[in-house]
């Protein structure tokens, strides 16, 4: 992850900038684009089915660091599955989105998880499970506990959201950010041979992209 570090505002890199790639995965019409749109534009609109992948950015100024999220919003239809791995390659975080009013979409999210587990080691990626559309509580098919329990057994972050009524959308991205920073700290606290405990600024700005 440290290769995504950019020069900080001070010489010591006390306030570094990190670029993190977050990919939104899940069944068709669960609200992936709406979550991205709510988070980035703080608004809600009916969106066209995503084709290929839509790209958004959002910058978070936190005390410890500045985080630039690159959000990759993918198409949900299974037919597109074959091109999707092109988009999640190299991701730092993934949000697996399901629709709480449609049980089948949680099963699909579990399949996505299996795909990710094939591609990434557990410490390579932060994964959040997101039950969207809490505004449609009357039509709920998936109990909160069920999502929460599944997330717990798999070690995923978990939150229920509503892109429409703006419920916990910021929170899930914030949780992802905090977890990524935490991992960054754990990494850098391991002393390097020179006794340095900061990220390697020599590699700053270098980025690799695979898709």
């Amino acid at each position, binding site marked *: 992850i440290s290769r995504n570090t950019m020069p900080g505002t001070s010489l010591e890199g006390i306030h570094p900038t990190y670029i993190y790639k977050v990919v939104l995965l899940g069944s068709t019409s669960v609200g992936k684009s709406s979550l991205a749109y709510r988070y980035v534009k703080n608004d809600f609109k009916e969106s066209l089915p995503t*084709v290929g992948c*839509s*790209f958004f950015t959002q910058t978070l100024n936190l005390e410890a660091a500045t985080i630039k999220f690159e959000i990759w919003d993918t198409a949900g*239809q299974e*037919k597109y599955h074959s091109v999707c791995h092109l988009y999640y390659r190299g991701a730092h975080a993934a949000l697996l989105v399901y629709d709480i009013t449609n049980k089948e979409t949680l099963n699909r999210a579990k399949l996505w998880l299996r795909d990710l587990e094939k591609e990434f080691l557990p410490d390579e990626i932060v994964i959040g499970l997101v039950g969207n559309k809490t505004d449609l509580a009357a039509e709920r098919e998936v109990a909160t506990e069920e999502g929460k329990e599944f997330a717990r057994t798999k070690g995923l972050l978990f939150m229920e959201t509503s892109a429409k009524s703006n419920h916990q959308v910021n929170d899930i991205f914030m949780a992802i950010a905090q977890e990524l920073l935490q991992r960054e700290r754990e990494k850098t606290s391991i002393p390097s041979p020179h006794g340095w405990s900061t990220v390697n600024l020599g590699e700053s700005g270098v980025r690799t992209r695979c898709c």
Partner: protein
Amino acid sequence: GYLPANMDRRESTLKRKRKEYFAFVEQYYDSRNDENHQDTYRQIHIDIPRMSPEVLRLQPKVTEIFERILFIWAIRHPASGYVQGINDLVTPFFVVFVCEYIEEEEVENFDVSSLPEEVLQNIEADSYWCMSKLLDGIQDNYTFAQPGIQKKVKMLEELVSRIDEQVHRHLDQHEVKYLQFAFRWMNNLLMREVPLRCTIRLWDTYQSEPEGFSHFHLYVCAAFLVRWRKEILEEKDFQELLIFLQNLPTVHWGNEEISVLLAEAYRLKFAFADAPNHYKK
């Protein structure tokens, strides 16, 4: 289109095709809730209310027609089936046929259900066959793993590297991949990139070109990308570049812009016509 060149045979062909379409509807449409077709139907049913423009999707009569057209097509083309994006492809034909019965200005707020039932049926059948004809030429765009699209994006990349090396290098330098923006250009034939009136103008030319929707479309895409060379070269950042390329400012485009684009595409086509291997490395 799909009509014979001989004018005398057109009327009878049109009649026969319309009859044929409604025979398909009769034969297949009831199976939409069968176990092996319900996924297809459900997906179409979810997508139709999400189509543009709004004026069409809000009319139950229209969504009903679109659902039938798409379902019948998907059932009759099992190799690809229904793929998101195909739903967009009906709209230009439908709007053109509807416009025969109304003034162009009216199309923004026109109630389709006010047309006589027979007229609507003809529009439905004609839209189906036009869309089918279009898709016949690009079916490998929508089969498993979408090889047609992958191949065309690759070809676009090679073409652009020949015609504007500076733009090509700039994208490459900032690690922007063509697939990240041009996938949609191929999948939806630029429909998502320009306003509907421009799509109709563009496709009018595609229809009169041999292999318009597959081959000529590539030259149009290349011209379209290079059209933004100034803006592209000014962006020095991956994120800004990709956001720009996914949201090109064409809202105010009309016939004039499309004519310029097509002229440039023709120029490219002829420049490469004698040397088809030019865009292959």
